[in-house]
């Protein structure tokens, strides 16, 4: 279509130039709508999308869980959640308009009557909307055990497709997607026996973060990095996701999950993929995901004998945080006595392909560490000959590129620079780029972006079935080894507020050291 001519059939020339592209009319059903994730993230995200005029022009929200609520009860709970957790104070007129038509469907997720009632509610909304067909998006914000149950009931009731109306149906599945490779394969089979892969949106909310997406821009929109982005110039990579807090109220989930499942299997491996992937042809969902899967497949899962040499775990003991004594993991509310769940996991992986062979990738995550930080540190090899060697001065460390994802999003590059004076002495200096100082816009919450993308049908920032399975394939042998009866009593402890267990140093190759958290 050109601006000079009439629109071609099937085209919408009005969308060109708009920052916010239209989203199809949608009814969003949240299973587990009064749960913690829904209250803290999903409902505030929906409000902020409404505030900005980004929701579909015809939008309905349906909540469901076992709680016996009326529509008004749900409206009140949702409004309270938005007021408490929204990133901006809500405009009450918008909030009231958003929640005016919400519906609530009470019932057990394993009860066919729930889906009968839901089907009736959706039919009513279709009838009210009339002229346009409403897409349906089902958001599974429940305990993982209910994922297959809900999917199968949706299929049995025929809610997995909108036959004849031309509308689309999507299902959004929260993490964790499985707890082992076998369970992930089983879940995929059960989900894909009802929905097609193009309807499934597996959430890894890290991918909705602006700085994570910016890794694609950083690598593929700048000429200067690609020539050194390989084994010839990069000595090692460290990916760290450290938290200074404990498990809070998540003991029920965390004690059966642990650090490896909670962060490494999904978030950290996603960061590794974005760092290592080849340039995609374009940013289409499958183009990006094809490249990520290639990276995951290039990581050979360890054999049982290799696990101890490439993976270290730990559990926090009592220590000090912010000058105050804090309890150890086993003293936290809800944690089983003698629990051997790891609250720290560190891995050394190798991406066995032409670009990365021989480069160690160190992944590390933990609770109750010294500081909250998520970062990727790429250490370059030293220059082949240092002309400035000065025995009276410490050796100049090689260049290091650090991409910080939180708390302060930015990129920093360490360079050698001359110390002012009459002698030629070099010391490292930092070239800093702070996102907050370079853009006037505020980053949206990850869930805002992901909910919108799912409603729009764009799966680029979601995990594909083979991707999820490839992630588990890497972690499965470690899970098996750590869960084996012979090794459950060998969980090293580290003091809360520290750098993690000293045993993690054993993963490091000669000359490498963990960055200080």
């Amino acid at each position, binding site marked *: 279509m050109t*601006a*000079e*001519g*009439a*629109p071609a*059939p*099937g*085209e*919408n*020339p*009005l*969308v*060109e*130039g*708009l*920052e*916010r592209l*239209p*989203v*199809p*009319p949608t009814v969003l059903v949240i299973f587990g709508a009064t749960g913690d994730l829904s209250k803290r993230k999903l409902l505030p995200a929906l409000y902020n999308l*409404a*505030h*900005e*005029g980004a*929701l*579909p*022009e*015809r*939008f309905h929200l349906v909540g469901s869980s076992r709680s016996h609520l009326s529509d008004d009860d749900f409206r009140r709970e949702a409004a309270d959640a938005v007021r408490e957790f929204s990133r901006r104070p809500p*405009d009450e*007129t*918008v*909030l*009231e*308009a*958003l929640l*005016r038509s919400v519906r609530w469907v009470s019932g057990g997720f394993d009860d066919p009557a729930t889906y009968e009632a839901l089907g009736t509610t959706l039919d009513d909304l279709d009838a009210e*909307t*009339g*002229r*346009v*067909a409403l897409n349906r998006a089902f958001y599974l914000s429940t305990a993982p055990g209910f994922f297959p149950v809900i999917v199968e009931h949706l299929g049995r009731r025929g809610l997995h497709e909108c036959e004849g109306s*031309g509308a689309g149906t999507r299902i959004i599945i929260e993490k964790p997607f499985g707890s082992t490779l076998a369970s992930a394969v089983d879940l995929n089979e059960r989900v894909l026996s009802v929905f097609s892969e193009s309807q499934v949106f597996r959430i890894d909310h890290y991918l909705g973060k602006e700085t994570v997406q910016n890794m694609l821009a950083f690598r593929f929109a700048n000429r200067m990095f690609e020539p050194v982005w390989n084994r010839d110039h990069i000595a090692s990579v460290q990916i760290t996701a450290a938290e200074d807090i404990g498990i809070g109220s998540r003991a029920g989930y965390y004690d059966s999950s642990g650090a490896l499942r909670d962060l490494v299997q999904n978030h950290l491996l996603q960061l590794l993929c974005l760092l290592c992937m080849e340039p995609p042809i374009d940013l289409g969902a499958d183009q990006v995901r094809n490249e990520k899967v290639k990276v995951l497949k290039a990581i050979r899962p360890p054999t049982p004998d290799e696990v101890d040499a490439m993976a270290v775990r730990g559990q926090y003991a009592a220590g000090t945080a912010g000058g105050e004594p804090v309890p150890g993991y086993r003293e936290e509310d809800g944690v089983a006595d003698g629990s051997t769940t790891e609250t720290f996991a560190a891995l050394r992986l190798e991406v066995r392909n032409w670009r990365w062979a021989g480069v160690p990738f160190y992944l590390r995550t933990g609770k109750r560490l010294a*500081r909250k930080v998520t970062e990727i540190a790429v250490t370059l090899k030293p220059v082949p000959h240092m002309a400035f060697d000065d025995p009276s001065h410490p050796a100049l460390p090689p260049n290091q590129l650090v991409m910080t994802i939180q*708390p*302060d999003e*930015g990129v920093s590059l360490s360079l050698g620079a001359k110390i002012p004076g009459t002698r030629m002495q070099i010391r490292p200096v930092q070239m*800093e780029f*702070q996102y*907050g*100082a*370079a*853009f*006037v*816009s*505020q980053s949206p919450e990850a869930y805002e972006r992901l909910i919108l993308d799912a409603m729009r049908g764009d799966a680029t920032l979601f995990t594909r079935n083979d991707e999820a399975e490839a992630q588990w394939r890497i972690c499965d042998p470690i899970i098996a080894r750590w869960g084996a009866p012979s090794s459950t009593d060998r969980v090293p402890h580290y003091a809360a507020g520290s750098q993690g267990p000293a045993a993690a140093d054993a993963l490091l190759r000669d000359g490498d050291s963990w960055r200080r958290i």
Partner: protein
Amino acid sequence: MRVRAGYARVVAVPTTDNVWRERDTEPPAIEAAIRALERDRHREDPGYVHARVLNMVVLVDREWSGEIANRLGRVGRFHPSRLIVCAIDPGRRVVDALVSVAAPAEVREGETVATRETVVLDIGARHVAGLETIVGPLVKTDVPTLVWAPHGHHDAVRRLMGLAQVMLVDSVEDPDAGTALRRARGLSEETYVVDLAWLRTTPWRERIAGTFDPANRRCELSTLTRLQVRHHPDSRAAALLLTGWLASRLGWEPSPLVSGADGLQASLHAQRQDVAVHLAADPSQTVPGLSGITVDTASGETLALDRGRGGLHATIAGPGAPTQDWTLLGASRGESGVLGEGIRQALLRDPTYLPALRAAEILAR
């Protein structure tokens, strides 16, 4: 010296300003003062970093500069990194300058926050002829410069065209919409223009685009038979831009609108049919911009969008189906939000504005 408030005020976040001022001064001294204040800030706390996003140069009448300061103080996070205000007092002989570097009063450990630099220059009419030699040394290099002259000052604007990458205008400010659009078009030939009148139409454009976006509705875009745009009595330029946008996107042939008893109207040629266009002033509208839009399709369907609580109120009526109405959710940005959006848009490019402006200019002839 450390004081509170001023041009760099941030709503709801307590800030402090480090300030330098000098009478009868020159750009090198001012520039040195900015650098010294930034160094001081960094010494106070390494968490203070100076932003490198956008310069904004504002040309104002000295006597109305307080009102502009208030408007800029309300733009929230969409503030420029360095704001240079040239307050023009015709009789003034020397340049006085006040520099402030503002930042939130408290920075949490490990956090970084961007400072906000403001330079207020009191200048006379005699300085306008060489204004670029005063302002040029004060803009941050390698970041875009946005120029805004809400009180006219066309001669001063002309002097700054060489350093401006973006001009901010508001076509509804001129009493004559045609003159405003011609002027915006003239500026567009030299630099990128962000027009606040255009930005006031954004929610309306998004919603019209959204309404006709479902696959089964797209074909109706080529069957529109009537367009009515209702607008604030002083915002005819915004209505013309919205009409120009539809004309340029849908291939309507723009022709001059004719003044009638209740507004401007014309019949524009589309490929399949003519489109009856009517622009009507709405005296009940209290804020600049549009108050409503109605479009008819050849099938007899009528879609109306009007301002309402919590967003735009949509009504659809037509043969064979009951009338429906609903709310298109969205918060009002207010005039400060529109100005903030204008600053943000200085870093973006909208390829549809210029074609819409060209069509609007013809409609206004």
